[in-house]
């Protein structure tokens, strides 16, 4: 198994913008305090140097294969196919098994790659933020493997919740710092990590999605695209062609970009992002930046679509902690603005029912985040799927962290 080298298909400007040529809107950039400029420059220059460094990339790819285990299978699911209407009507449904990674989601790829970069650039310590400790765990594991110190910033309210990934982060030796600002949740934790980066220029900041100031969105999607590069090859050898559609859930957009990136210029492949509609878009309690009417704003160093509340950021709401984010990666917002990626939604209750269906009928315990995309994908395929098509759903994580929540749901719905 060899990982195909990365090809830049959608370069931003040198300042980190993706520009919609029609309406001139810009996505991305680097909106940060001047005190952070040198730190970001070090990361940015280091990143471009590293991805051209053959030895670095060879080592990284080997470690992604043997430590993270990125060569996960693609699983044809006769049961999901049947649920969507049957092969004769809608074609076949496949699952990309990203849940089988070390640490059980797509996050470990960019986490490990960024930590490897940190080490390559001589940083001794890493700073990151987390909501439900998915990113926290992934970075903690990478830092342990690479011998780096780590501070994880987490909103004080999030830190209170019992979470297996929080304990695992601690077992890996991470230092967990509670953030008491504002809503005490993911957003202020991200801001706090960026502020810490300003105070500790000898540490490298790492972000958990394709968000943040340039070069983070670019860097994370470049590293994460390993998933898509492997998928593209696997899918060709499995079916002889590219998939007709690809579906991925979208909080910040990293798992979406990780699998779709290599296909963005393949116009025959339809790309779908699924957001969390929470209690329903109309209730206002949702995490759907695009589908829920987010506006352009400037947040955490980037210009992108944001859920706004006056000049401040509106709280997002969803029971999937990995999707609880009031903005979206700038490249994703750009790809949506040019019509390349279509957006769908699923509600929390639909996702939870899908979790039970997957556990009962497919035998898999899926990350609740993945259940939004599975639900929306089956609904869409039912409506628009055609015979002989192949549909690919990104099963982006496994559901151990959701077990307690789902046991409650099961008991209530017996």
């Amino acid at each position: 198994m060899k990982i195909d080298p990365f090809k830049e298909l959608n370069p931003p400007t040198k300042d980190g913008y993706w520009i919609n040529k029609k309406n001139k809107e810009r996505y991305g950039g680097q909106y940060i305090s001047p005190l952070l400029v040198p730190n970001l420059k070090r990361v940015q220059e280091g990143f471009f140097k590293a991805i051209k460094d053959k030895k670095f990339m060879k080592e990284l790819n080997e470690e992604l294969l043997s430590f993270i285990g990125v060569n996960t299978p693609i699983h044809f699911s006769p049961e999901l196919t049947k649920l969507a209407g049957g092969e004769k009507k809608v074609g076949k449904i496949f699952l990309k098994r990203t849940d089988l990674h070390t640490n059980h989601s797509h996050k470990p790829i960019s986490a490990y790659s960024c930590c490897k970069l940190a080490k390559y650039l001589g940083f001794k310590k890493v700073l990151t933020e987390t909501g439900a400790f998915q990113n926290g765990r992934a970075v903690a594991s990478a830092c342990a493997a690479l011998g780096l110190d780590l501070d994880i910033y987490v909103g004080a309210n999030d830190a209170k919740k019992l979470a297996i990934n929080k304990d695992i982060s601690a077992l890996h030796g991470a230092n967990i710092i509670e953030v008491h600002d504002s809503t005490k949740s993911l957003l202020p934790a991200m801001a706090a990590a960026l502020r810490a980066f300003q105070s500790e220029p000898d540490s490298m900041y790492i972000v958990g999605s394709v968000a943040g100031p340039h070069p983070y969105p670019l860097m994370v999607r470049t590293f994460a695209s390993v998933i898509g590069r492997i998928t593209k090859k696997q899918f060709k050898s499995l079916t002889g062609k590219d998939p007709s559609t690809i579906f991925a859930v979208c909080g910040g957009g990293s798992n979406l970009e990780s699998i779709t990136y290599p296909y963005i210029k393949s116009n025959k492949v339809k790309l779908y992002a699924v957001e969390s509609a929470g209690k329903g878009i109309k209730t206002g309690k949702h995490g759907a930046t695009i589908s829920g009417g987010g506006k352009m704003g400037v947040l955490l160093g980037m210009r992108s679509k944001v859920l706004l509340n006056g000049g401040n950021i509106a709280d997002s709401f969803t029971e999937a902690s990995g999707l609880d984010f009031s903005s979206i990666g700038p490249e994703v917002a750009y790809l949506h603005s040019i019509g390349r990626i279509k957006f769908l939604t699923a509600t929390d209750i639909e996702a939870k029912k899908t979790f039970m269906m997957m556990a009962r009928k497919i035998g898999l315990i899926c990350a609740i985040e993945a259940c939004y995309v599975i639900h929306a994908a089956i609904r869409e395929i039912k409506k628009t799927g055609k015979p002989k098509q192949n549909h690919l759903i990104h099963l982006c994580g496994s559901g151990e962290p959701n077990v307690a929540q789902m046991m409650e749901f099961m008991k209530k719905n017996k």
Partner: protein
Amino acid sequence: MSKLNKLFKNLKIKKKSAFCGFVTSGDPNYASSKAIMKEMTKHCHIIEAGQSFSTSTSDSPIIMEANDRAIKSGMNMTKTFKLIKEVIKETNNDTCFVIMTYLNPIVVYGVKKFIKSSASIGIAGVIIVDNNLNSPEEKILLNGLSKKGIGYTKIISPTNSEKFIQQSIKNTKNSFIYITTYAGLTGSKNVNLNNVKKLVYKVKKYSKNMPTGVGFGIKTPKQVKQVSKYADVVICGSNIVNKIKEGHERRLSAPKLAKFVAKYVKQLSESTK
């Protein structure tokens, strides 16, 4: 001539440095904040009024808490303009008001509307912490504000490159350039006088007449005195905000809180050379 330029001209004649006090606009609430600012105009040449942004990427925990207090009390850009407008009207002295904020509140308020409101109210200057030197928003704001004679301040720190500093000097118009005493958060470390000296000299080298403001971590009258030897403006923030918090927690009424804070501001201000 712009308000800030007028101020610097006057002080140059007196061979004195300016004192700038920072508060978060609307901290702990509209009424108290207004009283505090009014009182502070008696001791400050410049008042830097922070328009809160909950997702700030550069403020210290002390200022983050002030932001939280202000947001909870209902502050937003519109109210900040109203507050400053009332303070200016009701004090009738020469204190310059500088708005310090992040780009998002301005983008949401509307960039053009922001420039218009600033001008009509008589804002002396604007600092946007996270506006990149090369962003499209930078050009629009810099040009728009300059046309109205409103000052535009860039921030530089000891770790910035020569090129960045030169560019920052270029983008600073009708105002002082803001030099931080260290790379970090406001109020988080100790003042490094050496850094201050070096950066002030560097700025003067590139632009002889550029006024220099120095801030971050300046807490005592002694520090104010030392820094004012080099800087044209000495900026104090975190400790003033701490006084507001202290008074607020002691449940002082708006007038009493204003006096309590102003007493401390006066001490600092009088220490400028």
